[in-house]
């Protein structure tokens, strides 16, 4: 139970946050964006942190999720949940098509193929302008409607995103500790020996890739319905790169790492509005330094720090014992 205290406190905080911010639409919108990016980062973390494969095309899946769901709603007239489901299925299928050839070869090829996929996706969306509105994008996307309930304020949207984020976190933690998760971690650490233990490497890599594409698609659906305006430039390769920065700096393989990274790098551009380039310089150098100094990111660094602090010989424990706990007993 002790290990659950921190996540539960965070959850209560997240639930109470709207009241603390005085229901400011702007802050809720930003926090919603953090959640949306965290979902995609979580998916990438499943692929990169657990299975050790690199994707540079997650923005492509985010775009597909966003466009498929919005087009199904606005052109076909489906409601929110069925179109969400269709978008996720589309992402899963595309993930399989893109991942299948690359994942049979060494990990580099997936990075190359997905990078090409990301670039081509935005280009295809731009070119199909009669369907997607081309470079002008799609405006006035309707608020999501679930059964008779319409989610039509920044506050309600915040809670909807929070609900999906919790679902994503729950799935991530469960798959991590399942047979599949262990297989993924085994093949990340040593592909050959995991194969010798009977793990079907290509199949498990594909499972990881498809799951992470679905996460990205979900993030896209929520993005489209939160911002209510999408255009192909929102999903450039730099979005994929920043997902990568988020999880590398937050902590590869940790669900909390994706959250932390998303919090930092979603909000950073809002502090540097006049200097977008500086965001990229900071992200790039942060990746290089973090990889070198703390390979498991901020969360990993915090974990080692905690262990060091709680050691009997550490300064903190000695201070505490001097101050009184031992004297009293």
């Amino acid at each position, binding site marked *: 139970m002790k290990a659950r205290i921190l996540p539960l406190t965070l959850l209560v905080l997240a639930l109470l946050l709207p009241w603390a911010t005085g229901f400011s639409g702007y802050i809720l919108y930003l926090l919603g964006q953090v959640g949306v990016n965290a979902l995609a980062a979580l998916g990438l973390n499943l692929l*990169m942190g657990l299975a*050790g494969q*690199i994707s*540079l095309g997650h923005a492509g899946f985010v775009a597909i999720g966003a466009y498929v769901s919005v087009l199904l709603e606005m052109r076909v007239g489906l409601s929110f949940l069925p179109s969400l489901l269709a978008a996720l299925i589309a992402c899963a299928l595309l993930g399989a*098509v*893109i991942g*299948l*050839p*690359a994942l*049979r*070869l*060494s*990990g*580099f*090829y997936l*990075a*190359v*193929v997905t*990078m*090409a*996929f990301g*670039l*081509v996706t935005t*280009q*295809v969306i731009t*070119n199909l302008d009669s369907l997607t509105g081309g470079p002008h994008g799609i405006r006035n996307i309707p608020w999501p409607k679930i059964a008779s309930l319409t989610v039509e304020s920044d506050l309600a949207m915040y809670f909807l995103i929070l609900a999906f984020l919790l679902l994503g976190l729950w799935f991530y933690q469960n798959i991590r500790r399942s047979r599949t998760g262990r297989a993924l971690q085994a093949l990340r650490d040593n592909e*050959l020996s995991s194969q010798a233990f009977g793990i079907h490497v290509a199949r498990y890599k594909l499972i990881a890739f498809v799951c992470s594409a679905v996460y990205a698609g979900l993030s896209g659906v929520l993005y489209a319905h939160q911002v209510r305006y999408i255009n192909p430039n929102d999903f450039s*390769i*730099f979005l994929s*790169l920043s997902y*990568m*920065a988020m999880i*590398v700096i937050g902590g590869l393989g940790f669900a909390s790492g994706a959250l932390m990274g998303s919090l930092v790098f979603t909000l950073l551009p809002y502090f540097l509005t006049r*200097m*977008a*380039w*500086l*965001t*990229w*310089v*900071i*992200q*790039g*150098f*942060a*990746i*290089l330094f973090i*990889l*070198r100094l703390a*390979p498991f990111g901020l969360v990993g660094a915090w974990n080692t720090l905690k262990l060091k602090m709680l050691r009997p010989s550490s300064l903190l424990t000695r201070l505490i014992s001097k101050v009184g706990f031992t004297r009293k007993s």
Partner: protein
Amino acid sequence: MLLPLLIGGLANGGVYGLVALGLVWLHRSYGVMNFAHGEMALFVTFLSFFLVQLGWPLSGAFLAALLAAALLGWLVERLLLRPFAGSSPLSLVIATMGLLMALNGLSSGIWGTLPQRFPPALAGPPVRLASWPVQRQDLLILGVLVFSALVLFGFLFFTKFGLASRAAVQNPWMARLLGVSINKVYGASWALSAALAALASILFAPKTVLTTSMMMSVLIKGFTAGVLGGFNSLPGAILGGVCLGVMENLMAFYVSTQWKDSLALALIVLVLLVRPEGLLGKKETQRV
């Protein structure tokens, strides 16, 4: 109509081939796919544009850019990637992606994101070749491609350092035991690869506009060319680049220019599905 299409395609393909050459060489010798390859070239292309604007002659600015590229490549290996020696290939690749972001950010921070016109090395009216007009820059690119391929070939097969590099590719440990300074070979590989990329970028920039997003699609084409050639064969990289360039141009003319970039993705997926070892590559085998 076919001849100018072919020559234009060959010229674009030459650029892709030059990019792929550097990528494949680094992949073979250093075991990393360098995702910052394009942005390193972009940075020095902006540098040479800056020098031209200062009033330097074109040739001086180009030469300075090539030297700067070699220096940048060497520095990147020495300062950013060598500290990662011995860590997993995954973190090496992530490091190159970090470098990609940092260099792209720096380029747009220093030189801005507005598109610029980069002066062609060979200006002037198109040459008439069998009564068809052919751009001078295209001919120059083909010349440079052939020239640099020959220089690289001569360097690898007729110099002592080339022999050492080939030995280091084949078996780094054994080469080190026999007295090859691996670190020098690595530094030289990075310098060489960055210079090739810069050459490609400087030749390509006049054919489009110089922007900070210019090299991203060229990099993808370079990767496609490499995959097409097998990613471990240097002649394969050039052949792959040239094939891609020609196919692209034919498709742009007979189908539509809009779908040019999609061809690259379709080709990569197709090659990886049907013939992962590419046109000229060898099958990758791994000793257990």
